[in-house]
């Protein structure tokens, strides 16, 4: 039996577009955002409604988007462009302005398209090319301050010390609850699966933050006494998922990983756990928020020459350890520069630690499902064989 709070979250999602329409009719404004480094709590503190935009998994929309950009652009970027072109998405329809940060260099250019073709108000938040330098940090502080000013202009309200504190407190509590959920689902026996938690994380794209926090707390309370989910095999190989975005609507690789007998226990996806892993606003100010974003788990969009100091790799290694992952599934979307550039490097670093690694390179068309299934089944077989050899079985593989 599924957890009651998960049903409540689904119900809240179902009624959310109508709520947004009503709120807009009453004069409230919706700030849609894309990419990874948009300090969302500032949108909230400015009295605007934040909505994280963008879906995946729909090849029809990819084709539609391809009319506006090259077929060599990443499928996610093409699908989002297609979504804006079509204009029927319940959240895009209810967006008053779109904010995009310059993290993924393909995705941020969507702002140009949606402004030119679809006449939507768009704004850019600059992101430094180097997060480690003092100049980079300073630059992002300035960009965040400019972002806050733009938000105030759109909402017609000032971000006050009180509204900022409230927003930071709500987001901090949400992050803590998500981290708690992740710890629980990774247990040997668990009442909630990673897949369910991933869907809960993505409900945050849309729901009102106060409502969302209340639902998260309810879910955590319900889990405390909930029975173990018998579908989660305690013996299945444990997998960390990394790489390109896996947004709402795209579950192809995740479903296949589970159908192949693997159990995802952790991810560092920017559409999943990455924003919750270690974002920590130490000082309740615009600058404090900017610093928290720049110091957290980084997106794969930027080159890092010093592998030893690469926080993304360090975090992945730590997550493998903390979540007892047997192997890494590295998902790369076709023409996703950010993560296709990182795949070989990540594999090489993990190989030194004897961590099995599989890259799945795909797009939203369904034609490669069986080919991916073969790769994932073979990967799971090899993870199982490592365990079986250790337990004294004869041979390996099945």
């Amino acid at each position, binding site marked *: 039996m599924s957890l009651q709070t998960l049903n409540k979250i689904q119900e809240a999602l179902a009624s959310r577009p109508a709520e947004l329409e009503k709120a807009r009719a009453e004069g409230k404004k919706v700030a849609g955002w894309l990419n990874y480094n948009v300090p969302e709590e500032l949108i909230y503190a400015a009295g605007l409604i934040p909505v994280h935009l963008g879906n995946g998994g729909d090849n029809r929309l990819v084709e539609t988007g391809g009319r506006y950009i090259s077929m060599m652009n990443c499928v996610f970027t093409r699908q989002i462009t297609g979504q804006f072109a079509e204009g029927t998405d319940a959240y895009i329809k209810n967006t008053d302005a779109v904010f995009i940060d310059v993290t993924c260099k393909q995705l941020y250019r969507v702002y140009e398209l949606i402004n030119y073709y679809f006449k939507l108000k768009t704004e850019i938040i600059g992101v430094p090319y180097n997060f480690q330098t003092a100049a980079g940090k300073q630059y992002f502080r300035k960009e965040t301050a400019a972002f806050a000013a733009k938000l105030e202009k759109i909402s017609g309200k000032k971000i006050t010390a009180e509204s900022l504190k409230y927003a930071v407190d709500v987001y901090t509590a949400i992050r803590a609850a998500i981290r708690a959920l992740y710890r629980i689902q990774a247990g040997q026996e668990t009442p909630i699966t990673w897949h369910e938690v991933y869907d809960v994380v993505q409900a945050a794209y849309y729901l009102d933050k106060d409502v969302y926090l209340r639902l998260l707390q309810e879910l955590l309370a319900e889990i405390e006494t909930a029975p173990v989910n018998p579908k989660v095999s305690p013996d299945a190989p444990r997998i960390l998922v990394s790489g390109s975005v896996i947004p709402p609507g795209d579950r192809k690789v995740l479903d296949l990983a589970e159908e192949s007998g693997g159990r995802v226990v952790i991810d560092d996806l920017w559409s999943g756990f990455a924003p919750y892993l270690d974002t920590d606003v130490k000082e309740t100010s615009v600058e404090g928020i900017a610093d928290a974003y720049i110091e957290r788990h980084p997106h794969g969009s930027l080159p890092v020459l010093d592998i030893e100091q690469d926080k993304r790799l360090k975090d992945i290694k730590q997550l493998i350890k903390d979540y007892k992952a047997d192997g890494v599934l590295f998902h790369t979307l076709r023409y996703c520069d950010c993560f296709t550039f990182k795949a*070989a490097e990540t*594999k090489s670093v993990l190989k030194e630690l004897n961590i*099995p*690694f599989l*890259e799945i*390179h795909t797009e939203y068309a369904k*034609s*490669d499902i*069986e*080919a991916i299934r*073969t*790769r994932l*089944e*073979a990967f799971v*077989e*090899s993870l199982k*064989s*490592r365990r079986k*050899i250790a337990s004294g*079985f*004869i*041979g*390996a*593989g*099945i």
Partner: protein
Amino acid sequence: MSESGAFAGVDVGSLGSKSVIFENGKIIGSSILRTGLKSEESGLDALNAALGDAGRRREDLKFIVGTGYGRISAPYADKTVTEITCHARGAHFLHPKTRTIIDMGGQDCKAIRLDEEGNVTDFAMNDKCAAGTGRFLEVMANVMKVQIEELGELSLNATEVLPVSSTCTVFAESETISLIARGERPENIIVGIHHAIANRIHGLFSRVGIESDVFFSGGVAKNVGMRKALEDVMEITLAQPEGDPQLAGAIGAAILAQEAWANKKIKAVV
């Protein structure tokens, strides 16, 4: 390890269906048939042909493992395992020093690394594209108006390697037609086609690395021209296995059938 009784492996690929009967640690029968429209029937036909070759009946089999792309419709199998794991075990059986496998089948190509026990340690497969596969060679044989079996021998008579695109079957086909129209020697074009595939496969190995001995498995492994092109382009020496490299997947499946039976008994005891 030798487990008494007979065990079968059935490997239904996109072009060929193969089966092997294993008994007392030895291959006692095998078959290779053309895959038909229904993969379940093709697998059963291959299994029955291998049983006939071995002089055994279906009821003599203790365990059957199905593999290959047709494993998704193999109700005759007690268990299905991917062709990647099976090729590793099969290649290890045919040539125990194997640490790297180049497997070229009808619709895909695999680079597989394995340990000294024949367990997969890493692998990579070509993307959804015919370049680097048996199907690519079929298309090219058709363009060159020769039988696919003749391609390899013809390529050995080349006087130079003509460049052919290594990225796309359709483009490579039109390039080949242009080369024919230009009056180039057919053997030089054919060797260029083999080198195009070898270059593609070389790229695949950049993801997993190469360690000797290198075993060439799959239906295309019987093509002498392809073997030579791989050795020239990748600067390797391919192992000379005893036995048919096209059967590697089915052999691996039969070995895994035997192991599964043994492990079932261990589980029953434990």
